């Protein structure tokens, strides 16, 4: 056992050395037209060796270290308490949710413009994560190309506004419906696939859409993207300093207040908030409906579900379509918020982040997913100084979560159903 441990620890240390020496210890420098290889500073090498030693020590004494960690006092004050009664918990949850929404309503009027902007982004991610939660968390279909539907929503608005001058409010349903349709179309070929195979194919679809947007230069402008996407209007009132479109009035003039750039930001935030709440409510309703139960049944046991009369085609397609629909929602808001979109906003990393939100939050759990969306979007902004290490911290957080809380922040709980005794 000890020898085994030792060998394993040695192996880990050597791997650390092999990986970090070329990456950290060797630098490429341009000298004239040639590139030469130079070594790094001595301190870097010392650090690498120290890191290897640290890995070695940790791996060698892993069991006792982990044991010590386990003996630490439990940080969770609720751990010993009896689980709350069902009805009480449901009530508490809905109070918390209402509280969050009310707070969110007043939030933009007390904080800075930057924070409101960030909060809008958070809400977009909330919508995306809630939508993906349907596909991955409820229906159990691992979709790695979810960002494609987000892109469809955003580009629908961008293109329609460019070619037909459509407004945000018209584009919102069209974008969402088109994204949903794309979801359905992409769903057909992958009906038979499960797990890893499904993940690979959806990953491919995500890339196809992005590459298509990137290369169809005549329509989408390719990597240059599309700019000048209009902001939403409030009953024909624009939020700019000057009215851009004929027939519209401007918000500040109508109400006789001084122009402020903040109005627009706050308005967009409120739209995103309303849409996010609508998304959450609709999906929450779906979860309690036959279609929601069918998604879960198919995730749990496809054969049993089919033997009970559920059509795999209908159930899977509905999950894909509804998930994509809300991504389209989010995409339209995103396009309007940015005013400019390019394929760069819809890379695989986005899919990965949305998926990470769903997994971190707890598959199928709405509250968990919302909290995770907030955390994952805000933390990197707070830790701007460490932006170089953002992905590193992100990765470490994921690993720690998988070790300590594989079921996510707030795992999904079953809905309590009261039955009347039958005679």
């Amino acid at each position, binding site marked *: 056992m000890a020898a085994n441990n030792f060998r394993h620890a040695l192996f880990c240390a050597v791997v650390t050395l092999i990986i970090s020496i070329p990456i950290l210890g060797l630098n490429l420098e341009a000298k004239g037209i040639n590139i030469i290889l130079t070594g790094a500073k001595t301190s870097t090498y010392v650090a690498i060796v120290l890191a290897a030693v640290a890995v070695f020590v940790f791996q060698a004494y892993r069991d006792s270290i982990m044991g010590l960690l386990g003996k630490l006092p439990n940080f969770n004050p609720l751990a010993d308490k009896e689980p709350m009664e069902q009805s009480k918990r449901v009530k508490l949850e809905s109070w918390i949710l209402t509280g969050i929404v009310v707070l969110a309503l007043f939030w933009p009027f007390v904080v800075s413009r930057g924070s409101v902007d960030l909060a809008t982004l958070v809400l977009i991610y909330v919508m995306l994560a809630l939508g993906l939660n349907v596909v991955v968390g409820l229906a159990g279909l691992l979709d790695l190309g979810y960002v494609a539907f987000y892109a469809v929503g955003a580009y629908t608005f961008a293109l329609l506004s460019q070619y037909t001058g459509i407004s945000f409010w018209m584009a919102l349903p069209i974008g969402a419906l088109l994204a949903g349709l794309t979801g359905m179309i992409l769903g057909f070929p992958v009906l038979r696939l499960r797990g890893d195979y499904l993940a690979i194919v959806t990953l491919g679809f995500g890339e196809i859409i992005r590459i298509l947007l990137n290369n169809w230069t005549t329509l989408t402008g390719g990597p240059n993207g599309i700019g000048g996407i209009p902001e939403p209007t409030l009953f024909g009132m624009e939020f700019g300093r000057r009215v851009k479109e004929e027939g519209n009035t401007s918000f500040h003039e109508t109400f006789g207040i001084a122009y402020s750039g903040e109005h627009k930001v706050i308005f967009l935030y409120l739209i995103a908030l309303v849409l996010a709440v609508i998304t959450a409510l609709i999906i929450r309703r779906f979860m309690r409906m036959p279609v929601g139960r069918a998604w879960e049944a198919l995730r749990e*046991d496809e*054969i049993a579900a089919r*033997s*009970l009369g559920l059509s795999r085609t209908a159930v899977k397609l509905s999950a894909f379509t509804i998930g994509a629909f809300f991504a389209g929602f989010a995409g339209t808001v995103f396009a309007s918020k940015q005013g400019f979109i390019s394929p760069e906003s819809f890379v695989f990393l986005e899919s990965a982040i949305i998926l990470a939100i769903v997994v971190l939050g707890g598959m199928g759990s709405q509250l968990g997913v919302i909290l995770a969306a907030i955390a994952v979007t805000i933390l990197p902004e707070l830790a701007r100084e460490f932006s170089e290490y953002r992905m590193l911290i992100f990765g470490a957080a994921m690993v720690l979560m998988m070790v300590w809380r594989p079921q996510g922040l707030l795992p999904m709980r*079953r809905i*309590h*159903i009261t*039955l009347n005794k*039958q005679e």
Partner: protein
Amino acid sequence: MLEVQNLSMRFGGLLAVDGVSLDVQEREIVSIIGPNGAGKTTVFNCMSGFYKPSGGKILFEGKEVQGTPDYKISRLGMVRTFQHVRLFTQMSVVENLLVAQHRHLNTNMLAGLLGTPDYKKREQKALDRAAYWLERVGLLDLANRDAGNLAYGQQRRLEIARCMVTEPKLLMLDEPAAGLNPAETKELNQLIVSLKEDYNVSVVLIEHDMSLVMDISDRINVINQGRPLASGTPEEIRQNDDVIKAYLGEA
């Protein structure tokens, strides 16, 4: 009501089922027995639409149903259980029963989102039916537990209840007594008989527990190595020399 004629199923070079015929009348319990690997479950899989048989006919209420997709078969009123219990383990007990009633519910999404009166009425009916069957199999108190946390015998009963809420005409039970203790087997025995007597359901049963089979079957079909060996009443089967040689004698 069910007639299987000359059914055969080939997997590559292997003829798993060869010329099996059986028929089930209304309110009848028909058993299929045979040694392990005889092809009993394959017959079930063909009947329930999981496999498309290589040859032969399956008639349900006079209509040919061989090769019909599985989910459509169950909508016709032929529902099965599985040799290894297949519940939706992370869903609650009552949700398992609600999923099964998908067909009876108003699945119009808009109606559900708006909560129309018709939708609510059907939902309540489904809940009541679920409650009725949970009570019937003695699981009402556990309605909100995760199905995966039930004891094995309870899972078996839940699986049968899940079939019954679909209001089937024919129930196919694949080794329902496997893994049950004698007391539970006895309860199961009574349950199956009551399904026939009180709910007018025909039952096709695959089972190794001979006392159960002999006790409740109206007729028995014996299969050996994919071929029909004998069929008849329990009394006839018990005295059939071929059967004794192939199966009963060695057991």
